[in-house]
């Protein structure tokens, strides 16, 4: 059973057509990459899955459930997490608080329980802290736990954002340019983390990325978009040699 089915997705903004009949399937446990030149509609697909946008046509099924029936905040409950292209951390909070926010939808205490704190809220804080610490260990950000996010270097912020997404215990992880703006070492680290997440946690990953080395190395399958249309899909080796893809990227 495919984890994510995107079928005939179309959306336009004003006169601009962002996506035209895009269809693809992501199998469970796969690393699926979406590539394409700037403005091809890659992030728009993510925004449709997250329900920030409502597509004009088409369907998105996640584990056989119609995502279009849900509101943006409900999508995370189904098990979809996302790391943004431009870091979208809560920058005035510590790393730890950001990660605990990743646990938000799995926690329950409300205003009264929180205000009284002793009892339910405290128990919940402590039990979820355990999972957060596991993720901190997994992504090797122990040293930054108590730091305010905006004081951290860019590469670390990117990793914290990945950690926040993982704290949501997702089935499906959407990564929007996880290595953009990183140096070679940070890029390699991140690529390794992506593979680790996929193998050890069994998370299905959809990746949008411009760094072709990373895409070719980690992806199981790749889908190529150009001006909102899908022009190719297949294994990295097939994509590398696809004449349409070469034309989209290099021009004729």
């Amino acid at each position, binding site marked *: 059973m495919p984890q994510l089915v995107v079928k005939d997705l179309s959306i336009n903004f004003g006169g601009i057509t962002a996506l035209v009949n895009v269809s693809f399937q992501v199998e469970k446990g796969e690393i699926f990459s979406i590539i394409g030149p700037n403005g091809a509609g890659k992030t728009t697909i993510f925004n449709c899955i*997250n329900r*920030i946008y409502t597509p004009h046509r088409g369907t998105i099924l996640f584990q056989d459930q119609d995502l279009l029936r849900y*509101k*943006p*905040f*409900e*999508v*995370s*409950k189904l098990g979809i*997490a*996302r790391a*943004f292209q431009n870091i*979208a*951390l*809560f*920058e*005035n*909070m510590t790393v730890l*608080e950001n990660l*605990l*926010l*990743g646990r*938000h*939808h799995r*926690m*329950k*205490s*409300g*205003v009264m*329980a*929180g*205000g*009284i*704190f002793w009892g339910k*809220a*405290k128990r*919940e*804080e*402590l039990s979820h*802290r*355990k999972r957060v*610490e596991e993720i901190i260990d997994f992504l090797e950000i122990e040293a930054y736990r108590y730091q305010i996010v905006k004081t951290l270097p860019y590469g670390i912020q990117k990793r914290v954002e990945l950690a*926040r997404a993982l704290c*949501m215990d997702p089935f499906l992880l959407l990564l929007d340019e996880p290595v953009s703006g990183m140096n070679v070492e940070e890029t390699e680290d991140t690529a390794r983390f992506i593979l680790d997440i996929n193998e050890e946690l069994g998370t299905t990953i959809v990746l949008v990325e411009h760094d072709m080395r990373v895409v070719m190395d980690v992806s199981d399958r790749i889908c190529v978009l150009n001006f909102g249309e899908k022009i190719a899909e297949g294994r990295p080796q097939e994509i590398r040699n696809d004449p349409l893809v070469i034309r989209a990227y290099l021009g004729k």
Partner: protein
Amino acid sequence: MINGNFKTNYEDEIKIFQTTFVKFWLVILFVGLIIFPLVADRYFIYLCNLCGIAIIGALGLNILTGYTGQISLGHAGFLAIGGYTSAILSTKLGIPFWLAMPLSGIMAAMAGMIVAIPSLRLKGLYIAITTFAFGFIVDHLIIHWESMTNGPSGITAPRPSLGVFVFDSDKSYYFIIIVMVILATGFARNLFRSRVGRALIAIRDRDIAAEIIGINLTKYKIQAFSISSFYAGIAGSLMAHYFDVITFENFTLMLSIQYLAMIIVGGVGSILGSIYGAIFITLLPELIRLLTDLFRQEYPSLTTRFADLKSVTFGLIIIIFLIFGPKGLYGVWRDIKVYWKNWPFTY
């Protein structure tokens, strides 16, 4: 970083009062607060009571504006609803203060939920405008709904009583206020070390990211408004039973701006900041009065210009803080603390 303060479990980390040093001073403060009214002058107790009421109101505004990022210019409106609900319930229906106070909080909270509805679609300055309008609507209601509010002449609410004991002196009322301040501060502090508080801060910092990690913006914005106005309602109720009479003049736009000034001066998004700011802004007119009295001999005209001086200084202080200390008194205090901790090293 405090040397030698090592934690061995997660529970120690989420404690509010981390060291015995802090706990020691807290006990000192607490004892001081209890002894204070027994030795202090009646006037000082009166000022202290005003500060206490302001702290509760400022905490409420900071929850909404400082932590959740929804700028409110209508805080006085919520205080008015709290104050008038409490006064009307106790005079017209004879409901005791102990019931009227929480009810007035709830009433204000319900008004807050209604005001929250436009905020779900608006952001920033536009919310400031809707809350601003709300303040005027409440003012207008108070003046013209005479059968309920006595119109411009105001209402006199009775002092609370417990059995035969009536809290009619400043000293006895002080204890009611101090208990409410401690409860309000504790609740707010706890809120922001748990799930809901974090969600509110997340909405302030990045609302779209907050929504994607599963925070229901609608629900939490409404909650922020209702918690904030609950606080304001309680503060209003305490005002109503403390002052000899409350009229619409107690709850004008100026009061909303004073509360904004409190959180700006004290520290936006900080519990301690709300307390510092509330005390500072409440005592500011007294300080100005003290200074004008000091120079009365040389400049006799100063006394007559007290009102002007008050509003000028008020504006000046807000501007000074916005430019030189945007983190407020709390930020200044923290910077000094860090400086001395590291002295003579720079880091």
